[in-house]
C-alpha cells in the first residue's frame, strides 16, 4: 500500500473532524510558535550585541580597580581605589603594544542650559579617550591636551544631551552650560553612537577634561584614579599581548606577591560580549523549556485524540482487516494520521511564530532574526511528537483482533 494512499486515508479521516483536529494540534501549534518567536527574538538580540561590540572595536581593554569576582562583571565604583595616575602613565609609556590609554572618571550631574536642564553622566577624560573609543566629533573639537593641562572649563556633549538641552539639529558649539554652578563652554559634539548592548544610550553623556573633573566636579585630584582606564591595543592581534603586559606591569607596580590576587581587573570586549551572550542564553534555555512543555502537552493531546479515534473506528479497522489489511497497514494508517496532525500543527506554528516575532519586533523595536535551521528543527520536532505520541494508539489499533474489531458496536 503506497504512502500516498495512506496519506489520503489520513487526511480524509482528519477532515471529518476539522474542529477536533484543530484543537488537538493547538498544543503543538503553541509550542512551535513559541520556539520560533523566542529564537527569532533571541537571535536578533544576540546579533545586535555582536554588532555593537564589533563597532566598538575588539582591540579595547577596560581596566578597573578591585578584584575579579567569579565569572562576574564587577563595577569600579564602591571598590577600594587601587589604580593610580602613575599606573596610567606607566601603561602609556612602558607597554609597547598599547596605542593609547585614557582614564575615564564618571559622575552623574545635572547640566543646565539657558532654557533647559538635563541630568546625565559626566565623564572626566583625556584626549586619548576619543581615540581609544574610536569616537569622532560631529561638530567642534574634542578635548585637547592643553585643556587637560590647564584644567579648562570646556565640555563635549553627547548627541542626546544636545537634543535635550538645545533641541534637535541645534549646534551648541560656543554656548555655555553650567554644572554645579560652574560655567563650561561647549567645544564639541560627539558623533551619535547609538545604544550599548545593554540598551544604555551611549550618547546620553558629556565629557570634560579629567583635571577639571577632579577639581570642579568630584573633589581633589589625589594619587588615585577614581574611575576606569580605557586602553586601545595597536591591533586586534596585540590585544592579548597588551592585556598580559599590563597585568604584569600593574602587579609589579602594586607589589603583589605570587599568591596574591590582582587588586584590579582587566577585561577585553570579547569577555564582556560573552557575558552578555550568557544572559541571552539563560533566557533562551528558559523559553526552550516552556516550548518543550507545550510540545509535550501537545503530544499528549494528539495521543488522547488518536486513542478516541481508534475506539470510534474499531469497526472500520475490523472491516479493513477482513479485507486484507495487515497489522502494519493499520499501524501506518494511524501513525500517519498522528504525523499529519502534528506536522500540520508544526507548519501552522511556524507561520504563527514568524508572524508573532515580526509583530513583536515592530511593536517593541526589537531586532528579529530567523534561522532556517531553527525552522527545520521545529518542523522536525513536531513530526517527532507525532511519531512518539501516535505510536501507542496506532499499535493498539494494529493489535486488534479482526473478529473483535468487527463485532465492536
Amino acid at each position, binding site marked *: 500500500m503506497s504512502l500516498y494512499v495512506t496519506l489520503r486515508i489520513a487526511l480524509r479521516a482528519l477532515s471529518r473532524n476539522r474542529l477536533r483536529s484543530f484543537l488537538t494540534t493547538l498544543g503543538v501549534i503553541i509550542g512551535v510558535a513559541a520556539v520560533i518567536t523566542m529564537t527569532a527574538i533571541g537571535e536578533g538580540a544576540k546579533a545586535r550585541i555582536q554588532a555593537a561590540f564589533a563597532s566598538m572595536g575588539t582591540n579595547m581593554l577596560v581596566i578597573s580597580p578591585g578584584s575579579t569576582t567569579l565569572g562576574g562583571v564587577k563595577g569600579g565604583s564602591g571598590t577600594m581605589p587601587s589604580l593610580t595616575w602613575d599606573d596610567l602613565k606607566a601603561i602609556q609609556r612602558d607597554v609597547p603594544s598599547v596605542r593609547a590609554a585614557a582614564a575615564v572618571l564618571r559622575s552623574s550631574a545635572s547640566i543646565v542650559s539657558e532654557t533647559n536642564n538635563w541630568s546625565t553622566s559626566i565623564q572626566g577624560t583625556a584626549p586619548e579617550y576619543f581615540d581609544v573609543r574610536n569616537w569622532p566629533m560631529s561638530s567642534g573639537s574634542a578635548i585637547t591636551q592643553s585643556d587637560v593641562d590647564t584644567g579648562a572649563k570646556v565640555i563635549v556633549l553627547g548627541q542626546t544631551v544636545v537634543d535635550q538641552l538645545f533641541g534637535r539639529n541645534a549646534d551648541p558649539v560656543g554656548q555655555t552650560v553650567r554644572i554645579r554652578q560652574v560655567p563650561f563652554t561647549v567645544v564639541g559634539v560627539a558623533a551619535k553612537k547609538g545604544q550599548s548592548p545593554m540598551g544604555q544610550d551611549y550618547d546620553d553623556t558629556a565629557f570634560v577634561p579629567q583635571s577639571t573633573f577632579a577639581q570642579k566636579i568630584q573633589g581633589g585630584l589625589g594619587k588615585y584614579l577614581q574611575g576606569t582606564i580605557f586602553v586601545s591595543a595597536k591591533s586586534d592581534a596585540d590585544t592579548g599581548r597588551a592585556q598580559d603586559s599590563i597585568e604584569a606591569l600593574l602587579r609589579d607596580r602594586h607589589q603583589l606577591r605570587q599568591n596574591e590576587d590582582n587588586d584590579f581587573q582587566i577585561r577585553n570586549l570579547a569577555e564582556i560580549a560573552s557575558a552578555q551572550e550568557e544572559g541571552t542564553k539563560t533566557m533562551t534555555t528558559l523559553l526552550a523549556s516552556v516550548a518543550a512543555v507545550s510540545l509535550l502537552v501537545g503530544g499528549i493531546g494528539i495521543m488522547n485524540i488518536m486513542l478516541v479515534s481508534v475506539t470510534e473506528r474499531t469497526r472500520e479497522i475490523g*472491516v479493513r482487516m477482513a*479485507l*486484507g489489511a495487515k497489522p502494519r497497514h493499520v499501524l501506518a494508517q494511524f501513525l500517519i494520521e498522528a504525523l499529519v496532525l502534528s506536522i500540520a500543527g508544526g507548519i501552522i506554528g511556524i507561520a504563527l511564530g514568524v508572524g508573532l516575532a515580526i509583530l513583536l519586533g515592530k511593536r517593541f523595536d526589537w531586532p528579529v532574526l530567523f534561522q532556517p535551521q531553527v525552522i527545520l528543527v521545529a518542523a522536525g520536532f513536531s513530526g517527532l511528537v507525532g511519531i512518539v505520541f501516535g505510536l501507542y494508539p496506532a499499535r493498539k489499533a494494529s493489535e486488534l483482533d*479482526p473478529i473483535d474489531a*468487527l463485532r465492536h458496536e
Partner: protein
Amino acid sequence: MALIELEQIYKIYNAGSDAEVRALAGVSLSIAPGEFVAVMGPSGSGKSTLMNVLGCLDRPTSGRYLLDGKDVSRLGKNELAEVRNRTLGFVFQNFNLLPRMSALENVELPLVYAGVPARDRKQRSSEALELVGLAKRQDHHPNQLSGGQQQRVAIARALVGRPKIIFADEPTGNLDSRTSTEVMAMLQALAPTGITVALVTHEPDIAEYASRVIVVKDGLIVRDEQREARRAVVLETGEEHA
C-alpha cells in the same frame, strides 16, 4: 480435491471457567469448489463462529483447517490477512461499507491492500460494480444508497479480489424479501464461475437457493444434505440496474 477441509475443529470460549462455551464442539466438514452451502441452525448454535473460523477471521482452539490444501489453523496475523485478501471475500449482514468513502473506493479496498496499482484498481472496481448493476452509482456514498444497493456494493467488494470463496453471514438479514432475492440471484450466479459460496441464514426460503444445507446445533453439524437448488428469479420492476 476439497477446497475446505475441517478436521475436529473446536472453538471454546472462557475455557476452564464456569462460563465455558463450546461454540464449536469438534466440527469436521469438507466443501468442494463451486458449491453453494447454506449453514442453518438456531440462534447461538455456532453458525457465526463456524463462519469466522472458515473465513480466517478467528482461529480455532484446536483442530485442523486445510484451505485449498494449506493448513491455515496455525497461521500468524500477517499470513491470515494475506489469505483473506487473496482467496476470501466477505459479505456481512450490516454491509460494513466504510461511510466516508464512495462505492468505488469501498470496492477498491481489497485491491489497495493487495498492492494493485491505482489505475488497475479503479478499472477492476468499476467492472465489479458494473457486474452488480451499480455502474452509475460508483461515486455515491453508502448513505446515498438503499440497503439492497449497499449489499450489492459489498458483493462487488467481495468479488473484486477474484476470491475462491465468498463468506456471507446472514447477508439478507437486513433486507426485504425482494432485495433478498436479488442478492441471492447474484450469489447463485457465482457458482458457474467456480466461486464457492458459504452463507449463514436462519430463513428456510433463503437456504432453498443453496445446493447444500448444513444444520448446526450446539456447536456440531447435525444435518448435511445436497439438494436441487431453487433458482432465484428477480422480477423486473422499476428498479434500475445499470
